[in-house]
């Protein structure tokens, strides 16, 4: 029997019930995220439900889930298995889950969940588990050793079946390692794949969740797996939303992804030998998406190093957002009112009941959707006003002097669920905003920002860097500034470079020698040998030609993308803006971007990239959008998918959303990325 037939309630044909919302700037392709989400959920559920193990009589089996990383657990259990956008919470106050509680379907017996590299009591699980399911990433080879160790520890009981799930699929290296580790011959170990490819984190943010992306190509120099994974994901995306007629790619990886995408399309086409003959070389038309821009992270390494100044960016910086969730102590968002007076006592209480909770932060929360991209100078007062408005509307109703008719009462009662939901969300975010503001008002934060700005403007701050190491500034925060300095000035002066590296190793430890090595390999850090003058650095040229610094930007009522960091516009976003007008005569920009710019159209029957490049498109992206608008429904902008190969930051997401909402920008934007990240997680992924 197929597993899902046992539980028709869960994976039943749900399409009929789904009512798609109309496209909006923040949800330009409503069908895509819904379809992907359904498909992912069905795949995962089928897998989890399949296979009652050794238990002969009972069809239920007890399962322990082990995840390669915490992030993967959040992704699969909180994002895939239950839609966080549709989740409702019972009760008045709570809208979060305890950190280790996951909304799992009742039909599956899951004993518990673990993270692979964390210490765990292997013995206690042994008694009551039939199946251990491991979720692993094929790119992280070290996980295999951990799994082997884990299995070896449980060797005593053969009864337990181990199944290794690779997302999206195990590579040849994994198979070989399994063989080396003696796992292939074991009868109670099996290998599976879970081809989920794309996870819709938001209606306008799709993630491939390829954590190792930048490391694999920049440090390990093995970009193939990343390139083909991204290309395959784009192919899948096109299966859902139709072929995309126009493709632009920036940076070496962008070109490679485009090449692989074209060759996969050709392969797919030619695999069907008995297809009808096609003669003409028409440009494809008729999909939901008009254009695709693929950006290699290497094109813009500066932006991740910059401190974000939007609410979401800061929240990520301070608390850390992973796969749309933040994990924090419950007292942060729900402090006990009574203890609030005595700070010391509160500390003690905190010690006692430090309860971690997971709170979803996503765009289906209307309040969050509004506040997430606001600048630090705005969101505080915004939240206060919201609170005031909410209180007023409540007071208006409850005050006795006004008379109300039945309709009004009815209306009010109807709004109560919305009201409580907003109230919950508002309380959360007021507390979080306090926390974030507190951090952003700290002197160190301000000093950091000022230093970033002066580096961006072309200054060198070696002395300040020296001081920061000496003060034992957190290592990755320091690396952000160090890399920023190197990127902006085209390297670190040779004499300073050696002493800085020595300081780093002595201060943070010997292992940082290799991290520095990796940063060098990735091009984030380099030695600059004497003779050059500062102004020759590519960044300095780009700063001028792309107008990256806009110090006069209005942060409260923004008029330019640079508001996201109070005056610096992310390079990648400026490139997208410039791309709308076309690249003719903008050689001074092109020269400073690694690799070449690929600008092609997809034809039918498909051709490879080399032949596609022979017929360059004659319209700029902006002109293309105008044609689309003229043809289509009035007021509806065509859709542009921006793909970041190597990760995207919240700063950029905020900027892209800003563009998407602007009437002057010709497209609605959906962002596809290998991972949503920030400067620290970006640098950490390289070590």
């Amino acid at each position, binding site marked *: 029997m197929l597993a899902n037939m046992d539980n028709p309630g869960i994976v039943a044909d749900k399409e009929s019930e789904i009512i798609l919302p109309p496209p909006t700037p923040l949800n330009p392709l409503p069908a895509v995220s819904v379809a992907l989400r359904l498909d992912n959920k069905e795949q995962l559920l089928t897998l989890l439900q399949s296979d009652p193990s050794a238990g002969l009589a009972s069809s239920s089996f007890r399962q322990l889930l082990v995840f390669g990383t915490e992030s993967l657990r959040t992704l699969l259990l909180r994002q895939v298995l239950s839609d966080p956008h549709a989740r409702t919470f019972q009760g008045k106050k709570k809208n979060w889950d305890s950190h280790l509680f996951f909304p799992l379907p009742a039909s599956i017996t899951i004993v518990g969940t673990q993270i692979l590299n964390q210490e765990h009591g292997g013995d206690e699980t042994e008694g009551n588990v039939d199946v251990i399911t491991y979720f692993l990433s094929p790119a992280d080879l070290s996980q295999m050793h951990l799994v082997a160790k884990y299995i070896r520890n449980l060797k005593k009981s053969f009864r337990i079946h181990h199944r290794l799930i690779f997302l999206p699929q195990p590579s040849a290296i994994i198979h070989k390692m399994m063989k080396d580790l003696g796992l292939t011959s074991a*009868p109670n170990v099996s290998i599976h794949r879970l081809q989920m490819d794309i996870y819709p984190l938001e209606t306008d943010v799709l993630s491939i969740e390829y954590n190792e992306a930048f490391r694999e190509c920049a440090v390990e120099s093995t970009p193939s797996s990343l390139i083909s994974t991204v290309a395959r994901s784009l192919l899948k995306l096109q299966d859902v939303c139709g072929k995309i007629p126009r493709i632009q790619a920036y940076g070496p990886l962008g070109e490679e992804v485009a090449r692989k995408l074209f060759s996969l399309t050709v392969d797919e086409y030619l695999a069907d*030998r008995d297809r009808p003959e096609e003669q003409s070389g028409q440009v494809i038309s008729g999909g939901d998406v008009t254009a695709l821009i693929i950006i290699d992270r290497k094109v813009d390494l500066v932006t991740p190093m910059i401190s974000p100044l939007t609410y979401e960016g800061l929240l990520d910086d301070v608390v850390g957002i992973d796969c749309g969730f933040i994990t924090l102590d419950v007292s942060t968002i729900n402090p006990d009112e009574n203890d609030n007076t005595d700070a010391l006592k509160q500390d003690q209480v905190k010690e006692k009941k430090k309860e971690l909770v997971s709170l979803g932060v996503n765009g289906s929360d209307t309040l969050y959707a509004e506040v997430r991209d606001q600048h630090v100078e705005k969101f505080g007062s915004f939240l206060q006003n919201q609170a005031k408005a909410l209180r007023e509307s409540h007071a208006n109703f409850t005050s006795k002097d006004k008379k109300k008719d039945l309709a009004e009462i009815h209306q009010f009662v109807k709004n109560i669920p919305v009201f409580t939901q907003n109230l919950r969300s508002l309380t959360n975010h007021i507390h979080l905003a306090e926390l974030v503001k507190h951090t952003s008002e700290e002197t160190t934060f301000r000093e950091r920002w000022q230093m970033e700005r002066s580096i961006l403007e072309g200054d060198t701050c070696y002395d300040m860097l020296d001081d920061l190491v000496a003060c034992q500034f957190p290592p990755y925060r320091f690396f952000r500034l160090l890399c920023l300095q190197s990127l902006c000035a085209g390297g670190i002066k040779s004499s300073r470079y050696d002493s800085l590296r020595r300081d780093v*190793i002595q201060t943070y430890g010997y292992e940082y020698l290799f991290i520095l090595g990796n940063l060098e390999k990735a091009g984030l850090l380099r030695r600059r040998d004497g003779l050059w003058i500062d102004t020759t650095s590519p960044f300095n040229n780009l700063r001028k030609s792309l107008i990256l610094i806009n110090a006069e930007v209005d942060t409260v009522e923004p008029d330019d993308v640079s508001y996201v960091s109070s005056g610096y516009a992310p390079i990648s976003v400026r490139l997208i803006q410039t791309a709308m007008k076309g690249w003719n005569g903008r050689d001074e920009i092109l020269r400073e971007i690694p690799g070449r710019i690929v600008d092609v159209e997809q034809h039918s029957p498909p051709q490879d990239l080399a032949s596609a490049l022979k017929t360059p498109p004659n319209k700029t992206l902006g002109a293309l959008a105008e044609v689309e608008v003229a043809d289509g429904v009035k007021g509806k902008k065509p859709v542009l998918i921006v793909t970041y190969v190597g990760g995207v930051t919240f700063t950029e997401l905020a900027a892209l959303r800003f563009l998407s909402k602007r009437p002057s920008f010709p497209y609605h934007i959906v962002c596809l990325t290998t991972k949503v990240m920030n400067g620290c997680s970006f640098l950490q992924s390289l070590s």
Partner: protein
Amino acid sequence: MVASSNPFDDPILETETAYTEQSSVEDKEFSASPAEASWQYLGDLPYRRIPIYSHVQWRSSCPSSMQQNCLAWYPQGLSKPQHLVDPKEIRNWYQTTTQTHVKACPHGGPIATCTVPLTDSFRTTQLRILTNSGQILSQQEFPPADYRERYNAVDILCLGFTSRTTLVVVLNDSLCFTYNLKGQALLQPFYVCQESIPLLQAKVYEGGVAVLTKNQDAAIAELLDHHDEEEYSQTSHLSARRIESDDLSHYALVTILPTSEYAKRHFCTFSTLAVFSRLRTTSQHPELFLSTSDNSVIVVEVSTIKMTDVDCRVRVNSPIVDMVFAPNGRFLACFTESCILTVISTSFETKVLDFDTSEGSQQVPSQMEWCGEDSVVLHWKGLGVLMVGPYGDWLRFPYEDDTVYLVPEIDCCRVITDSAIEILQRVPPVTAQMLSIGSIETSAMLVDAADAFYSGTSADDNTVRDIAASDQLIPAVETCLEAATREFDIVQQKRLLRAASYGMHFSYKSIEAKGVVQPSPTAQEFVVAARKLRVLNRLRHPNVGWIATSAQYDTMTPIGVVARLIALQRPALACSISQYLGLPKSVQIFARASKAAAYVMAAEGTDAQVAEVATEIILGGAGDHSLHRGAYATVAMAANQAGRPGVANLLLLLETSVVDKVPALLSTGAYADAMAVATQARDLDFIFSSLMEYERSCLANSSDVSKAQAAFLGMVVSKFTPEGFHTLRRYLQTTADVKSVTNLLIRAQQFAAAGTAMAQRALQEHDAREKQGLLAEASRIFGLGKDTALHKASTDDYAELIRDQETLRTKHNAPEVAPPSSSVTSTIASVIKFAAIQMRDQHRLFSDAEKLAKKYRVPEKRFWHIQVIALAESQQWSNLRILSESKTKSPIGYKPFARAAIRGKQSSAEILKYIDRVSANEERYDLFCEASLWKRALEEAGKLKDTRRVLNVKTLCNSNEIQLLADEMLGRLAQ
């Protein structure tokens, strides 16, 4: 419904009487209708025996000294007893000491044969695959050389073909060999279940093999290939093992079914098994039927290991010893211990038949098979073949010698004997109606009229006109066509086709009257039937030796026929058939590629000539290379196998499909090219498999392992793409021995990376000695490079630091004075912090810290910072004061002191002491703000005359008094 009479009680006489009676009647009334004469009736259903090939010479390619007896084969060394001289006796003796397995591919396909000694009288045997006409397709010695140490011929338990023409040989301990028709192994031999327990029974079914062990456990191995959906193996049982062939095209899914637990729980044993094909089950996975000693059957669902007792005890009165499913999967023939043949529906709900054979023989038949869908054929040694029909009717067929092998087919039963092959078949209903004696069917009348017409008798065509008038002509023509396709005799085929054509003359004209030029549907059917017959006759020709019936042809579909022909090594025929039938392009391309491959294998001439001809064969007239992607690689592989790498290379130049090109390049030994193609295509799996393939070939070509390794690494470094190199590096990094990766990196002159790999291993090492050793080695490697001075120095420092930490710990006899850490700063800091605990030793500790700082050349400024932070963190506030008041002026100023005090929540007086020593107003302002000393901050802002700072204080201070002051100041500044 037990048959009343004993079937073995002189049956020949009875049937023969019936036979003569019928034929005599026939003789009287019809002069030329021999068709029915050969029919025999089972109840009222006619059956016929169709001899296909008589006097078959079962060929063998072994030396003539070997003794071969038809399908059996005996080694020279098998000495027969001296006293036996009569050839019949000798044969008898052989038959009692050996057993010959004969199995055939379904749908009229080739035959596999293998003679196994009953005792250990010879060690190896010949495994032969032959066509029905006796031509040899492959022959090999069995067991294969690698397995001769452990296994003998006597270990062969069973063999058989799956529906995909895979030959499966199972040994007693469940070791399973799989071969294609060329006799090439498909999968590495694998054990179906635990090897230690011998098997009771093994059965090859259409999808693989199922076994039953002596300790009552069962297991099933499903043989799958790339034609099966990948999802299938995903939905298989969790414990299913997957065994893959080297090229990943074939794989086996082995599921062990723990049936012994069930047997123990229910106090029974299992005696036989049968597999219900996954095509017919609701789970879409196979089900295993096991007969129990308590007269029942349990069904095991392979995908869930769910076991159900069907409880047929009322219907069966003794344990079942043999079970066979009917070709349509609706019935199951069971033979019980008490010699009763029971036919029961697969659901065990309806019993169709009970037939007692005990009076004829007390033994279990040596073979029991279905003949088509409505009769069961049984064979006992020495007693001949018995056929039993659905209503208990039976027939006995005599066979001269006792070597009879039955092969069930979907519409008939193939009977293989030592010298002949024939088909036992129920006469197809259309044929029976038409050709039976005295038939008044319109089709029969049409045949008669046609016969008369063509024989030149001046017959009037009124009969046909009458048929046409009654609208029966077209059905009659169609019946003729249908019957023609079911005939084996070409004369008869022609006769029926001619009759159809004769009939069409009458029908066709009436249609044409309206001026429609299109051929009528009947005419099209005629063409289809004629084509089909041509193909079938070609296949049945002894030089192909494939005896497919029309129904089997339809089941296989023309594409399947072409695929099987290629498997049969008849690509040229496959090619012309695919073209003749106008099959889809992909099939034609495949057939052409196979033909080209066969050509290349045999061709002579220069590389260029051969490649050109091969290319022409592949293209087959169509000039588009991209359409034929994959075909070139296939042919190139064949060329390479035939020792023509030059041809292979020429062909590969035309190949555009990466999936096909990389394996082909690997097989030609062009590893670097394969790597280049794989890298270009961005396929990590191909990159990695190219590496592994090359390593394997290096190791295979050299006896010296270390030399082979060196050659391998050298080639990877010099000839392979960078990504190939890095992929290998990544893989080697995961292996236990760090040397393997450092060797590679050193060979590539990447000393920094090599040293790093070594040093990182050192960081993971817990044993102090090992760690030092690894660090020393890392330092040595760093020493080899040019830009690795810092690396070397840091590594040496680290090694030194570990030793210093150790010394400190022993000196102060406390682990916390210098816990293991890799940073100089943290070591100094921990020493200083330890002073908070060990007040007495403060001075010694501080001097130790200073010594460390000096030794590791920690700059003055940084050392001060470290001291400030460490002192503050360990709450040594007085020592911090002392430090600030030391004679040397602080090189870092007093801001860090102030900050430490603020963060350490010290009293304002304490904080102010430090802030007062800070000179810059801005810094003072910042510090006052940080310390929430708003009044002082306001003063500084005032000194700086900075309204923004004043405003800032005003918003942050949260005090009315200060806000007033701020306002005042703002007023003053505004003036």
